[in-house]
């Protein structure tokens, strides 16, 4: 089974494919600029935003440092309230636990609410293998599912599709040849398509935005009401969540609820948030299972800088401002977690993956992501850190060595030369020798990758600055 955290290609190759799709780029540009504008507006309303972010970061750092304690507390609180907690070391174990529970409940169909963690563990495929149909209830997930597609964004999984593409898809899948390509009409079609399914389903599967240790509470943040349907109407509810989703106290939850919607959809608050603990007699599901998933998270936890990525609350603000994401979209990252956060999360969750190691290089280090991150993850710093982890890993493995050797040898030699003024000056003389390659006439040079495809090389001057200084100024 495909591991949703292992990219099928190195980032530059996947990005090249995505760049060739002009519709995709137009869709992404329109969508990300809309959401950026909305976010800036509602974040600007909150006077103490920076203090709030710092508070959220501090709560997460504290929680992660004492994660074992809070998970145990969470488990006890859920059990006290009539729920059952299950643990999974990896994706395979997680999907087996969930599939066993679904089959045990006698369901042939389950209702799902958008959940990255269930994408991460490849749940739908294993359910299908065991004869269970998973019905995605989120509008975007429905678009993705009906199109046999993959999500390309953390919050808006079908951001890569425009209204006309969605219209064509719905018209085919729902048998509605006259459907109008208007968001209102498309949303209405989804409402009618899912309505019957909601009312008849016996098992629901959700993710969680937050788990609260002191109350055993699960928070699910959504907009459409499909989440409420899924969390309320079925008899049995299974929630799948990464171990990084826990916060210590119910009071802490308030801090994150103030940050999340503004960062994610640019709303002051999303339309619906359900917060429940265990089984509430006579209200909602009467059987509740919480599946806690590691799947590489404890590896990230072991790295003092790397663990800051586990503060992430999946708001996707970093995707929406990233100039690289805006050009290539989520699929190019090859992981269920795309964009800048994916570039620091994926290689930590799968440190042995050679393609994942190319993700930290998928950034110009422009810093837009760090500016908007509501939990203050120092993404550019992490990217640089993970690049050096990748360099060391390549060095140690020896496998990629062949391809990267010229780069490594060159940078090592340059490093040594640049540390000595005399050798540095000799290299400057070399730049002068290459002078004819620069300027408008300078054409494609194989050694310089794609630089010369769209850019001229600079023309080296006759005299370096230091020679001018020595000869004329000093």
């Amino acid at each position, binding site marked *: 089974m495909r591991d949703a955290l292992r990219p099928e290609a190195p980032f530059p190759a996947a990005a090249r494919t995505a760049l060739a799709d002009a519709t995709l780029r137009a869709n992404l540009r329109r969508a990300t600029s809309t959401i950026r504008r909305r976010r800036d507006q509602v974040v600007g309303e909150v006077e103490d935003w920076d203090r709030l972010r710092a508070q959220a970061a*501090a709560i997460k750092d504290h929680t992660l440092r004492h994660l074992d304690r809070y998970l145990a507390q969470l488990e006890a609180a859920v059990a006290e*309230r009539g729920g059952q907690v299950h643990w999974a070391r990896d994706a395979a174990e997680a999907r087996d636990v969930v599939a*066993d529970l679904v089959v045990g409940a006698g369901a042939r169909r389950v209702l799902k609410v958008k959940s990255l963690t269930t994408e991460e563990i490849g749940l739908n495929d294993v359910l299908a293998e065991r004869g269970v149909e998973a019905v995605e209830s989120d509008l975007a997930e429905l678009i993705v599912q009906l199109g046999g597609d993959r999500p390309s964004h953390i919050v808006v999984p079908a951001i890569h599709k425009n209204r006309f593409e969605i219209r064509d898809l719905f018209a085919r899948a729902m048998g509605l040849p006259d459907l109008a390509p208007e968001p209102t009409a498309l949303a209405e079609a989804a409402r009618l398509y899912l309505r019957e399914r909601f009312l008849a389903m016996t098992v629901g599967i959700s993710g969680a935005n937050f788990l609260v240790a002191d109350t055993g509470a699960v928070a699910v943040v959504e907009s459409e009401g499909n989440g409420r349907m899924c969390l309320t109407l079925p008899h049995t509810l299974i929630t799948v969540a990464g171990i990084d989703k826990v916060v210590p106290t119910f*009071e802490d939850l308030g801090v994150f609820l*103030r940050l999340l919607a503004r960062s994610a959809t640019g709303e002051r608050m999303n339309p619906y948030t359900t917060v429940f603990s265990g089984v509430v007699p006579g209200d909602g599901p009467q059987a509740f299972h919480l599946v806690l998933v590691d799947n590489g998270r404890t590896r990230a936890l072991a790295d003092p800088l790397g663990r800051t990525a586990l503060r992430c609350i999946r708001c996707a603000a970093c995707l929406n401002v990233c100039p690289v994401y805006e050009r290539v979209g989520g699929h190019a990252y090859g992981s269920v977690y795309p964009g800048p956060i994916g570039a620091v999360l994926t290689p930590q969750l799968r440190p042995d993956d050679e393609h994942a190691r190319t993700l930290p290089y998928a950034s110009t280090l422009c810093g837009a992501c760090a500016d908007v991150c509501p939990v203050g993850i120092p993404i550019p710093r992490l990217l640089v850190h993970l690049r050096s982890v990748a360099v060391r890993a390549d060095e140690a493995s020896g496998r990629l060595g062949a391809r990267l050797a010229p780069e490594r040898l060159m940078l090592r030699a340059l490093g040594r030369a640049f540390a000595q003024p005399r050798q540095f000056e000799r290299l400057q003389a070399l730049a002068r020798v290459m002078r004819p390659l620069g300027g408008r006439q300078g054409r494609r040079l194989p050694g310089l990758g794609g630089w010369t495809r769209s850019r001229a090389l600079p023309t080296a001057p006759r005299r370096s600055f230091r020679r001018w200084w020595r000869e004329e100024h000093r």
Partner: protein
Amino acid sequence: MSVDAKGRSGKARDEVLARIRAALSAAAPVPPPPPLPPPPAPPDLLERFARRVADYRARVTRAAGEVEVARAIAACLGREGGGRYAVPPSLPSSWLKAPAGTEFVVDRGLGPSDLARLAGSVTGCALAVAETGTIVLDGGPGQGRRAMTLVPDHLVCVVFERQIVADMPQAAAALADAMRTGPRALTWISGPSATSDIELNRVEGVHGPRRLDVVLVAGGPEDAGGRGEGRAPQPPPPSGPD
């Protein structure tokens, strides 16, 4: 702790916790941050809530005190053309004066398809949040089961001035004690159901109620007759652009 039939989960639990402890073995303790000081209460909680809830296309109907709630609710139902509305068993009967063409159905465990045939539901709330125009239902008296406020297409919710807090952290703090006592389910509602999944265009009304009416009552639920506070009843504002 829980162990499923195969004992698999117990083994996984021990191993995940052991991995966590190993990963953090060299890390210094990180203390929890002191709680943020509460923000200075904005002087106009009621008005701010009214503005914010209206921003997200909920309709606001004012009532000068609890005695006016029945009239306000009836006005909301009348605007929608009446029909059958679900109410929780614990809703004060003084709120319910059905206008012509409207009937109240007490929810004593209506099934999803029964609920789907109703025009809407009427409830109170646990509290409301001014900054975001959010209403929180916690299943307490006058609020009913979650399904009741979800399946029918129109929700009328009564909010008293004294139930309004400033922001999310204050709301969480106010609900925390109750959450610590036992199983509980909260629904935080900010405007009608919506989606932005198509080109980031906001479309109201997907699976939850497509129309949200808020009856905003001066004072608190216990002082029936909020006119005592000297507030003049205000005419209902024109209905929102929906």
